[in-house]
């Protein structure tokens, strides 16, 4: 078949050459040169096609024999190396078709399937305090932030689908499968990829880009659990249903401005049953390289929400569990910084990462105190709080696949003013803190095993010694190496 094609190609070239010769008699010298050039191009085209067919034939043969795991046959040497090397550039990119397409062959109805990946996680937890009573003293309870249950459990599994929608949009859908058999839509968003001038709009449900760690999925964190300020101020991670618009400045130093509007229903917000915008965030990120070995990114973020009747329970001065409801304004500012070092930028053997974030939170509005939850004694008064928190961690890869890390988290209760409700509720100053150490082993890009030990002092007079042994397995599509 190849020979037939080669023959017909030769015939075609000969035919063209003949016709070219006939025309040349009548044409001027300039025309002659142009025609020669055209013939050359056509010749090259045919050669490329023959090559493509040859390589397809070769592939077919390999598949037919299918003896080896990988095809180690020598390169199908081009008919004449010199011709290929000196071939003139084709007039348009499309005309130079690949001798062998680099894309994997896929066909039939599955050809357009999105990229699928799954993350499986499991943990063994040894906790000296009861995780069901987990609470950060002095801070509004923020939902599901307790560590894993004692003993063996699977942690959150994740299933992700992603693909281009068309020439203007791409989309991602990420399910989170909780150990209690519940399924949550973790992220579901579209990206407008055709936006010009550095704009990158995103819409749907997504992890907010505030701070550094917030938009990173839990399985790529360097520690098993979220830093205390993330737990206290964002309930772990903040996400909303809404719109995000980022703009990258056309500068050599990375400079990105972003804004988000959303429903603001996740902590520290609440579902409001209102039209309009429930949450707003703005941020700026800057970053770059220093030499070939150092890279950094720093950011400032601001998040504002309006929680309505945010309910939680807290022990009052009499020792009763009181029902509290907050309505008002919640504002959070975050300063984040990350610095990564790798010799010559090659992170394979050794590398180091230092990251830290500082949080300021201010809430003011009305707090309703309900002594026994039955609305017999209720009192509503002004409420204002100013609280802070921060963490810093460092992770060092001392040899390929092995890393050690240390982290310190601290929260400052700051000032909490209950107004007239101060007669029922205690305002004490206690600064929760936690020390963590971890060691992880990463046999390949797709698996990781981690041991983490930490001492958590988040309730007065109670120390929680925690040990986690964790695995993370990734299947399917290759993950992204986020900075």
């Amino acid at each position, binding site marked *: 078949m190849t020979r037939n094609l080669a023959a017909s190609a030769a015939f075609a070239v000969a035919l063209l050459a003949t016709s070219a010769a006939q025309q040349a008699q009548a044409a001027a010298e300039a025309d002659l040169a142009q025609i020669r050039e055209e013939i050359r191009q056509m010749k090259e085209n045919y050669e490329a096609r023959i090559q493509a067919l040859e390589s397809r034939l070769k592939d077919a043969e*390999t598949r037919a024999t299918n003896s*080896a*795991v*990988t*095809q180690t046959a*020598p*390169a199908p040497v*081009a008919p004449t*190396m*010199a011709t*290929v*090397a*000196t*071939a*003139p*550039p*084709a*007039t*348009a*990119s499309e*005309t*130079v078709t*690949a001798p062998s397409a*680099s894309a*994997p062959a896929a066909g039939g109805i599955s050809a357009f399937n999105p990229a699928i990946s799954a993350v499986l996680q499991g943990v063994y937890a040894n906790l000296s305090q009861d995780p069901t009573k987990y609470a950060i003293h002095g801070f509004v309870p923020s939902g599901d932030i307790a560590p894993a249950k004692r003993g063996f459990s699977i942690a959150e599994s994740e299933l992700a689908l992603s693909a281009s929608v068309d020439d203007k949009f*791409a989309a991602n859908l990420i399910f989170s499968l909780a150990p209690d058999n519940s399924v949550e839509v973790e992220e579901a968003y579209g990206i407008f*990829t*055709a936006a010009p001038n550095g704009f*990158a709009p995103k819409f749907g449900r997504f992890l907010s880009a505030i701070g550094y760690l917030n938009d990173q999925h839990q399985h790529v964190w360097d520690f098993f659990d979220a830093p205390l300020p993330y737990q206290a101020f964002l309930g772990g991670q903040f996400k909303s249903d809404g719109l995000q618009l*980022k*703009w*990258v*400045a*056309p*500068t*050599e*130093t*990375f400079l*990105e401005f972003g804004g988000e509007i959303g429903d603001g229903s996740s902590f520290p917000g609440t579902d409001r049953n209102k039209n309009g915008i429930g949450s707003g965030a703005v941020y700026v990120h800057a*970053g*770059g*390289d220093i030499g*070939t070995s150092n*890279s*950094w*990114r720093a950011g400032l973020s601001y998040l504002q929400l309006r929680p309505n009747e945010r309910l939680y329970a807290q022990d009052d001065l009499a020792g009763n569990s009181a029902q509290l409801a907050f309505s008002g304004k919640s504002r959070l500012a975050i300063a984040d910084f990350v610095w990564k070092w790798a010799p*010559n*930028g*090659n*992170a*394979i053997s050794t590398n180091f990462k230092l990251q830290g974030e500082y949080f300021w939170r201010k809430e003011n509005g009305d707090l309703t105190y309900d002594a026994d939850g039955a609305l017999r004694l209720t009192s509503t008064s002004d409420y204002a709080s100013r609280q802070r928190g921060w963490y810093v961690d460092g992770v060092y890869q001392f040899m*390929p*696949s092995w890393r050690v890390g240390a982290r310190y988290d601290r929260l400052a209760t700051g000032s909490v003013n209950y107004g007239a409700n101060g007669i029922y509720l205690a305002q004490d100053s206690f600064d929760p803190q936690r020390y963590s150490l971890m060691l992880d082993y990463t046999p*390949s890009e*797709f698996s990781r095993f981690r041991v983490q030990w930490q001492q958590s002092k988040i309730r007065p007079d109670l120390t929680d010694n925690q040990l986690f042994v964790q695995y993370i397995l990734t*299947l399917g599509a290759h993950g*992204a*190496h*986020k*900075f």
Partner: protein
Amino acid sequence: MKHCLNTITALALAVVAAPALAALNVFATVPEWGALATELGGDKVNVYTATNALQDPHHVEAKPSLIARARSADLIVATGAELEIGWLPLVTQQAGNPKIQPGKPGYFEAARYVSMLEKPARLDRSEGDVHPGGNPHIQTDPRNIGRVAGPLAARLAELDPPNAAFYQARHKAFADRWTTAIANWEKQAAPLRGAPILVQHKAFTYLEAWLGLTEVAALEPKPGVEPTTAHLTAVLATLQRQPVKMVIRAAYQSGRASEWVAERAKINAVALPFTVGGDEAAKDLYGLFDDTIARLLTGAQ
């Protein structure tokens, strides 16, 4: 205050005017395509190379600096075949630049223009970090660089029509010089034909195919998996039956495994530049292969 305002205006103007000076901003993912774009584009292109020869091209992060550079790029020149799968999709997605999205003329993949080797018949991660499109280290065969040059020059011409003739002329000159250089390298490397070698990572498939080297074994048990003592011991046993002259590795790889084997098997450990900038001599594409051949000849002695 007025002085300050002037400075700000000047800076703003500089930011707006800077990209207009060079015709095309080319973002090359690896040094070889940066060097090729410079050969073809001369002073009509402004080439930024995202990685250097001492970095493992599989393990790069979507650093802020890369996103910033991709933002102003007119053309991304990548290897393709999933070499950059870990970071390039993220960079193109976050850069807010519609010109360089996959499928657009501003996105060029070199691997589309060469015959790929080692396409896995069985796609499974138990085989290591395999690439469905075939082995992506195509630049170790200079003929592949010749094959990519034509389409790349055509792409530059397509994106910058006023300079189309310039790119064609540069390509013609490059192709002539490159063909002569290849013939010279082949002549120099004639003694290497059939020479048995060890490789650290399966990164030299195309070099082997070009020069007729015989790969006896790889030090990595599976592509992308760090060499283990057990596997290295097995490799040493293989060498009892099939002796080799040298073990080769890329400049970005740690020499530990190579040197461990070289010491025990009494063979040469050779670090090849692998791409432009891999060592002192590999300053450009010509230097890359001059030095590669010279090191292989020394290693084979």
